[in-house]
């Protein structure tokens, strides 16, 4: 494994003045939306939600 001391910044941190930068917040919210959206889509299309409804009698 390479030397850990040699770290680099990625595009998001370079593009923003600080960890509270608006670009970073937007990127994080975009990622969150993607993750939660895919979660919902996956459990819907793969039938988990229907299964849960059936088990819970909803």
């Amino acid at each position, binding site marked *: *494994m*390479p*030397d*850990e001391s*040699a*770290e*680099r*910044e*990625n*595009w*998001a*941190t370079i593009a923003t003045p600080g*960890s*509270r930068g608006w670009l*970073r*917040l937007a*990127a*994080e*919210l975009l*990622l*969150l939306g*993607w*993750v*939660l959206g*895919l*979660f919902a*889509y*996956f*459990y819907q*299309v*793969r039938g*988990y*939600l229907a*299964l*849960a409804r059936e*088990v819970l009698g909803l």
Partner: protein
Amino acid sequence: MIDTALILVLALLLLLVAGGAGHYLLARARIAFAGRLEEACFSVAAGLGALILSVLALGLTGLLYRPAIWGVVLVWLLVAARGLSGLRDLVRPLASIRPEPRSFEFWLVAAGVLNALFGLVRALAPPHGATDPLAYQLALPRIYLAKHFLSFEPTITGALYPSNVNLLYVVGLALGDGSLAQVIHWLTGVLCTLGIWALGERYFSRSVGVWGAVLFSFTPIVVYFGPQGYIDLGLCYFQLMAFWALFNRVTAPSRGGLVLAALLCGLAIGVKHQGLATAVVGAAVLGGCVLKQRQGWRILLRHEALYLVVAFLLVLPWYARAWYWAGNPVWPLANAWFSGIPFGAPPTLSTELDPSAAASAFWGGLLPSLEWFRLYADAMSPWAWTFRPTGMQKDIGVYVVALLPGLLLYLRRRREAWLLGFCVAYYLMLVRFLHMNPRYGLILFAGLSLLCGLVASHLSHSPRRLVAWSFRGGVAATFMLNLLLAGLLCQPVVPVVTGAEARDSFLQRSVGNYRALQFVNANLPATAVVMFQGLVEGYYCDRAYLWGDHPHSGLIRYQEHPTPEDLVRRFRELKVTHVVRILSMPAVRRAMYPDYFSDPFQEAFRRRYLRPLYWDESYVVFEVVYS
């Protein structure tokens, strides 16, 4: 029936033997570790390796008797007793852990433990359901144990493949029954999960390790196959340990560390041929690091030679066995290269590469064409594996495609980039050489789980509470749905595991051919040779059996026997006395087998030469009438 409690005790005994013996061996080899969890993980891997090699020695020398296997376990138990005090030191810190219910990681681990317990319940049921374990992974060890050596069963695919994990199943069958073998596979999955945790903790952070481990444990392939008698989690386990040892060796060079990495690589290759990828990637990583550190070509060659020679020495007995029986160390793969004994339809390395082809064509085929990418885009797409998997072995779950894009935001350190590079390299190998089948490359998903863990850890600890708690809420919802599925999967086996349902009754309703094979075991003479027609699951058959007309075995090709007289001559050559035949061929298998009872040729043969002895709604047992 060996009851559930005894299986659990035996599994615990094997774990203690492996951990204690491995700890003793590693202490003798003076190999240093960064943490106690890491040391415990490597101890168990080394101990399981020692047990595998001992059983391999018994199998090659014709000593696979239950007392001999018990003897081996007891010898390693004595060795383990010398290492147990050290092992106790390793697990002592666990006692000081205080649960912190306020921490989200606590609930992650709790969900992971509950998921594992559901899996354990399924593993404790008698082997049933899936085809592969009942056809090869558990069936072959059962035959070895009955014949007392690693016999060659030429009609069974994979009869001469390296089989390290199958040897652990031999131990499971000798000490207990098929359930113990399944628990051993489940255990390798748990050890994988712990390994991912410890590896993540060492190279990234504890949070990344915990997230990676739990996400891996919820991967549907792991959930489905972990409690069954497959060997893929065993392969993943030894590959994980091999790569981990190699990473340790690269970050803190030592000859002992390199030998340990090589030994674990050898154990991984010895699980199945897909394990060869460990040596390819391992040698590349080792070489890349030696060159990067400017140590020179001589050091590079010395290290590579030591790594590869030690690794392949461990697999040599398997290759020698295959060479002895079939004239081909990797039989039936690459049969054209080695002129091995003929095999019906040898499996290929990839959908396009044919090892039976001439060498020049094979090497020319290593580089895929653009057309190849276009043709197989869907088959190799993680998106398709997530949302439209063609079968459970491609069901990778949602976390990979959902979380990996977060690396654009959070990937910062070089070692994270290295892990990503490793995963990309392994993915390319999987899609090119391992049939685009995620089940054959679970180590890829162990690596991806760590990367997902990295993203999940960042999101979960985001300074913006809205982000952190929304993400945690979403993950918690997915875990609940995953646990619901895991619970439903184990529901049918609860009665048999708790003793409320008899084993026979459970198997009669869960294994299609169980009743027919019980008839075979109870009524046919010990010298009977049974031909399977339209089925391969021989685990519950006590008589000698052949995969008759399975296209892989090629034992009988009906087009080569145009009349019933020709066919019965072939039956006589094969010394077949009885036939077990499926009654109605499922549509998916009609390309492989005839639909016997609606096929005029098969019906003519049946009327003249087969006398029914037993039938149920699924299978028929015939006696072959030669006169």
